[in-house]
């Protein structure tokens, strides 16, 4: 017998213009049977009325279009961030404001470890907020001289380690000659490691093993809990290697009846040819389930702006730093785009600098002329420095964009005075321009780089405040309505999932964000403070408090 539940809520924001607000939603087989009044829904026959949400506000389940499962796995390590942050179990970790504080935090964690050889690992250190004070191996030797200790910076591109970690990696010696490994007055490495090349040989010794992190069951579960706490029901893992083993594991974990989120992992275009990548993704596509959506590719064109590795157009970086790095050559991207278009595979491409965006637009234009496919929805990710002309080109080629609204809050001040200067800092993550030019748009957190939380991301896009409290780029603010669209249907559209999720209307998945406040009723500056009760995913109820 079919079971129908009708949920009554204080208010239901549907994102469906035909019925923007309502009070009841009927759910059958994990999908939405209809919205409206109880009388209107009763026409479907027998039902159970569920009053759990009588004092809550429902929204479509939020969609995070750019995050990484690593946001979950990292929580097994010590959080050393500057800002308060919610962990997967709902505990708030207070930000640590000084280097001394970070050392003390690590010392406490160290004293709790029993295995004397087990590495101790911290993450999310951001000395930008601590007068850029540098940490050395001497500092971390105070935590432990015996076990390897490492702390990853918020950017993910710098690692601090202690003497033991250097010793295990064979680097505690004279004569190390590497641009990413500064030496102290004694001629030995200081313990600061800049960039993946320098971090590589040491990171496994301090417990950062990328291979084992992917498809890690505990990490996936932690990540999914974070989704519930932030109202997210569909989330991307935007650069996965998707090995045979990790896909098997992800399928197994997401299939569990208690797994509360839909994961969309994108295979990263790195270490395999375009043809092999397409073949792999085509074969993975067929293994998709409702909660694990395979069959998309992520390419990376350049590096990061604050790392000065993004590719910039004239006049380049404010401080005169040399232009950044290409991570993938135009020729390789051209081949990938052609093959992907021909095989119906969607590609999301990371660009940070405006030259990288320009290169991708040029390369994609050529590919699209050769393989003119409609409704491809190729998406630019981050795309932080795009100008109006570039957004016009995106529109002309039916491309989508996913802008990094959170970045603007956390590092906007740095960009203003250090990396790109005021004018370009003001137009970074130009949400208003993107919408004005008609480019389908999402906004994102890039968790763990910044915290997962689409309502916070919406707040960033609506207010454009930086950490120091300045409004940066008044003209690029967007309305609350547009921001709420971006974190639901906007993000769903960039994943070709807008027919299934993103709004509360008949036939779609019964995915809801359950809120304590009404985001359309409180003013835009309070969006980030909305309390989240939990989610409904595929008709299953997940209360954040009882995960």
């Amino acid at each position, binding site marked *: 017998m079919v079971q129908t539940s009708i949920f009554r809520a204080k208010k239901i924001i549907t994102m469906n213009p035909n019925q923007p607000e309502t009070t009841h939603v009927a759910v059958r087989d994990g999908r939405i049977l209809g919205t409206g009044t109880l009388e209107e829904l009763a026409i479907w026959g027998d039902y159970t009325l569920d009053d759990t949400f009588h004092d809550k506000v429902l929204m479509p389940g939020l969609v995070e279009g750019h995050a990484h499962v690593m946001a979950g796995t990292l929580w097994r390590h010590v959080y050393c961030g500057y800002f308060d942050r919610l962990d997967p179990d709902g505990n708030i970790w207070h930000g640590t404001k000084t280097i001394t504080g970070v050392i003390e935090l690590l010392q406490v964690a160290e004293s709790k470890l029993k295995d004397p050889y087990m590495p101790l690992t911290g993450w999310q250190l951001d000395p930008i907020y601590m007068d850029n004070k540098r940490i050395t191996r001497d500092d971390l030797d105070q935590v432990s001289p015996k076990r390897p200790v490492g702390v990853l910076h918020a950017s993910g591109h710098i690692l601090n380690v202690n003497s033991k970690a250097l010793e295990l*990696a*064979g*680097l505690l010696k004279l004569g*190390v*000659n*590497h*641009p*990413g*490994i500064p030496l102290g007055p004694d001629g030995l490495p200081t313990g600061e490691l800049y*960039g*993946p*090349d*320098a971090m*590589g*040989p040491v990171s*496994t010794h301090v417990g950062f093993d*990328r291979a084992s992190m992917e498809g890690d069951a505990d990490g996936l579960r932690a990540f999914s809990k974070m989704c519930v706490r932030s109202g997210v029901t569909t989330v991307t893992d935007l650069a996965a290697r998707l090995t045979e083993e990790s896909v098997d594991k992800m399928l197994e974990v997401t299939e569990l009846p208690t797994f509360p989120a839909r994961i969309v992992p994108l295979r990263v275009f*790195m*270490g*395999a*040819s*375009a*043809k*092999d*990548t397409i073949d792999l993704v085509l074969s993975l596509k067929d293994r998709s389930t409702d909660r694990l959506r395979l069959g998309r590719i992520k390419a990376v064109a350049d590096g990061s702006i604050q790392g000065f590795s993004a*590719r910039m157009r004239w006049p380049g970086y404010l401080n005169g730093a*040399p*232009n950044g*790095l*290409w*991570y*993938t*050559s*135009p*020729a*390789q991207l051209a081949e990938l785009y052609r093959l992907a278009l021909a095989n119906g595979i969607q590609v999301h491409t990371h660009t940070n600098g405006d*030259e990288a965006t320009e*290169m991708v637009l040029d390369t994609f234009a050529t590919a699209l002329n050769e393989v003119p496919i409609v409704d491809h929805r190729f998406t630019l990710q981050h795309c932080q420095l795009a100008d109006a002309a570039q957004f016009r080109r995106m529109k002309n080629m039916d491309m989508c964009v996913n802008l990094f609204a959170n970045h603007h809050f956390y590092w906007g001040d740095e960009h203003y005075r250090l990396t790109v200067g005021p004018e370009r800092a003001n137009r970074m993550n130009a949400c208003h321009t993107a919408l004005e030019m008609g480019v389908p748009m999402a906004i994102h957190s890039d968790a763990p780089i910044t915290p997962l939380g689409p309502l916070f991301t919406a707040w960033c896009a609506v207010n454009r405040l930086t950490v120091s409290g300045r409004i940066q780029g008044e003209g690029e603010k967007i309305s609350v309505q547009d921001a709420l669209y971006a974190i639901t249907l906007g993000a769903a559209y960039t994943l070709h999932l807008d027919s299934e999720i993103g709004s509360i209307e008949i036939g779609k998945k019964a995915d809801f964000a359950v809120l304590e406040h009404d985001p359309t009723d409180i003013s835009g500056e309070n969006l980030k403070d909305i309390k989240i009760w939990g989610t409904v995913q595929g008709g299953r109820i997940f209360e954040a408090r009882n995960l």
Partner: protein
Amino acid sequence: MKNFGHGIPVTVLSGYLGAGKTTMINHLLRNANGQKLAVLVNEFGDLPIDEDLIEASDDEVISIAGGCICCSFGSDLSAALLQLDAMNRSLDHILIEASGVARPEAIMGSVGLVNGVSPDGIVILVDAETIQKAARDKYMSDTILAQLQAADLLILNKVDLVTKDQAGVISTWLASLNENAPIIPVTHSKVAPDIVLGHFIQRVYAKGAHQDVGGLSTLTLLPKHNIDVNELAQTLAKDYPNIVRAKGFATNKSGQKILIQVVGSRFDASIVSKDLPDGIVCLGLGETLRMQHFKRLFHLLKLNEASQKLEFDI
């Protein structure tokens, strides 16, 4: 004799798309002359190995005739190098094929961090016909120029496709970008393996060696004892673009035995514990190693010209 206690020598091979890297790798594998090479490629997809050379392959390793192998390193080069070391295949040389956008000096920097291997040289392959156009490319220009500047050896490929004058113009232009790196003109990527792999020294020491690709000459320097060995190594690397490689021993002022290795513009001088006879073998192109070119060097090192050996076509 092999590595004198050093790690397996690693050459980073780079060059933009179409420069002829794949052809060159196959050429080196075909002419390895008993040397066991490991080729590390960025990706397996566009496999650089000719099919007739492949003996067996699995997901991790491709076995090649003559004990050579090919592996892919994906995104983690240091892990791949450690893995090679762990395989214990008594390799003679590792060749890393870098991607067209890579910064070869950064890759070499990473090589320097891995135990069991040691940086040998950065070899950049250049297509004589297209390099100047490529170096003006809207997006790739600075990347290509940086690669040329990072080279210890510049292999100027496809010289048969340009006129002699054009080749001269390109060589002058290359020298203006990187004055220390020897420029080696070749056709069809057929560079003498000795230039890239540097195993000529074993043959010179073994005497009666056989040369597979002609056109090379060697000069053996017999330095006096107690000289400034660092200065000698630096001079060979920086002041003599005709010397594409040099390797051998000298005794420094403290009486220590030093191994000198020069690859184009790169040099290394490090203490070795073995007591081997002094002597440094220099490798040059054709007849470019003429005595008169080295007068300044002999003078600098207070060497007697008559005591030096000059051999052609070793």
